[in-house]
């Protein structure tokens, strides 16, 4: 298992490099929240989820819903790495005619299940998918990553109520609790804590972890799968911009891509020293 975790850590580091390159190329997109969520996404796509990149519509696949759709770059690099589409496509992020839209679009991108990006709506859709899978008697599970700022949306709590009411134990929500949103600290803009207590009060199984500890992430996802009768939420404490020291914990990098000057420094933080002068 230790080796497996080391492989995932290396995978996550490479995905971070892809995110930084992709966002530098597009000069548009959300850096901080992509880097905070990528360890969870790496664990899901390269360890926990059953899926077939060569057959995105495989009926027994596990489903992934990126409720915090602005972290689309994090999902796109994972999909490309897994083989859903060529890695070169990443360089077309947000361009006219590209299948990589600014926010996840199920009509355009292989491997994207629903359209997200308008915050607060993803968990409801994850609930619906979980209900549908249960009706069909499938073992597939549904994973949904939300932001902590996103929890300010009332619809999240409607969905939290419904998931517990319908005992959706095939659903696992993850909260990328990086503590920052566009206007600043979540606790100052509109406090959402205690997130674990709120979900417990709504009847969920609650786990709290370090969202950059891949061993903890994998362990929590296993524990979620074992929980019966209730949905599970993994409250993952994370660092916005994680991995690039000068992006870390800065709300100002919520929707700002790396500049030309920042690119080599950002890549160096990630242990990547290749030149990119040709870009």
């Amino acid at each position: 298992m230790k080796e497996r975790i080391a492989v995932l850590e290396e995978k996550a580091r490479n995905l971070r490099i892809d995110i930084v390159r992709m966002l530098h190329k597009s000069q548009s997109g959300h850096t901080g929240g992509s880097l905070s969520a990528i360890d969870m996404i790496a664990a899901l796509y390269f360890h926990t989820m059953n899926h077939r990149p060569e057959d995105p519509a495989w009926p027994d696949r596990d489903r992934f819903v990126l409720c915090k759709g602005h972290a689309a770059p994090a999902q796109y690099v994972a999909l490309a790495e897994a083989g859903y589409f060529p890695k070169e496509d990443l360089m077309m992020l947000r361009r006219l005619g590209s299948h990589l839209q600014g926010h996840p679009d199920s009509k355009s991108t292989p491997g994207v299940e629903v359209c997200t990006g308008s915050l607060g709506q993803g968990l409801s859709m994850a609930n619906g998918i979980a209900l549908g899978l249960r009706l069909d008697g499938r073992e597939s599970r549904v994973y949904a990553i939300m932001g902590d700022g996103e929890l300010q949306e009332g619809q999240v709590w409607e969905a939290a109520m419904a998931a517990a009411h319908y005992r959706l134990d095939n659903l696992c929500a993850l909260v990328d609790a990086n503590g920052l949103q566009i206007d600043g600290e979540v606790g100052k803009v509109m406090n959402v804590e205690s997130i674990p207590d709120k979900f417990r009060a709504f009847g969920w199984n609650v786990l709290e972890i370090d969202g950059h500890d891949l061993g903890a992430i994998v362990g929590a996802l296993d524990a979620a799968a074992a929980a019966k009768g209730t949905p599970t939420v993994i409250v993952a404490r994370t660092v916005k911009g994680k991995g690039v020291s000068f992006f870390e914990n800065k709300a100002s990098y919520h929707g700002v891509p790396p500049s030309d000057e920042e690119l080599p420094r950002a890549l160096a933080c990630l242990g990547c020293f290749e030149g990119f002068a040709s870009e």
Partner: protein
Amino acid sequence: MSGMIATRDAYGETLAELGAENGDVVVLDADLSGSTKTSLFAKKFPGRFFNMGIAEANMVGTAAGLAAAGKVPFLSTFAIFAVGRAWEQVRQSVAYPKANVKVVATHGGVTVGEDGGSHQSVEDVAIMRAVPNMTVIVPADGVETRAAIRAAAATKGPFYIRLGRNKVPTVFPADYAFEIGKGSMLRPGSDLTFVTTGLMTAVALAAAEQLAAEGVSARVVHIGTVKPLDEEILVAAARETGAIVTAEEHSIVGGLGGAVAELLSEKCPVPVKRVGINDRFGTSGKAEELLKYFGLTAENLAATAREVLKAKG
């Protein structure tokens, strides 16, 4: 023409039939299943019925998720909540991804009655018509409701179907062949055309009868599908009769009247007058009183027809 049935009753009965025919049909409601008549489905197929409580936004998203899992979800609540409360969910989670979700809203228009303006949706058709990918249907009677619900179940993609609370006269024969996007000429005529939707079609037929007694020949074209609009039948009506009166139990802003005016001003400009709610909210009262109060009567349609004939010259 025979019998009276509320379109919501026809809906509930048809849903229950569909439930037996198609195991993928699932139904969601937000604590109004007795009023929307989805309770008829719930009784027969409790495992495929989801009461989502008084939480419309989540209901719409859940329906979108069920569609993503291959189901054919019908969701129901009052028109004001389906379109008003959950508008952005319908846009983002249903219309934008072209999800196979059928939004069937009951209690459209002022015939909601005593509950008053807060519950009377007069703008839902305009709002849904503006959303890309959305098919918008306002059936005239029980026969068309049954056919439209079946067509929606059989056709992939998002639908908005607006139904009413009260019993309305049946205008279509039992063997009526409904087609999405096709209007129906229910009465031929050469002097002007009533273009109507929902319960106003029966009212227009009565108005045409009154005008016939005065020697005026009024055509009646029912538009069941407000979007996509049947351009052919409307341009033909404009060209052949030279004057149009639209009528709907909805605001004159952006609904059927708006759609017809947009079309004809580009394709065949003729005098058009719109009968509907004149850019105001509803109010409490009995349904029949409210139809009179807002001028949604055969008498007002006939009077408006006389005006448009003057404009036609």
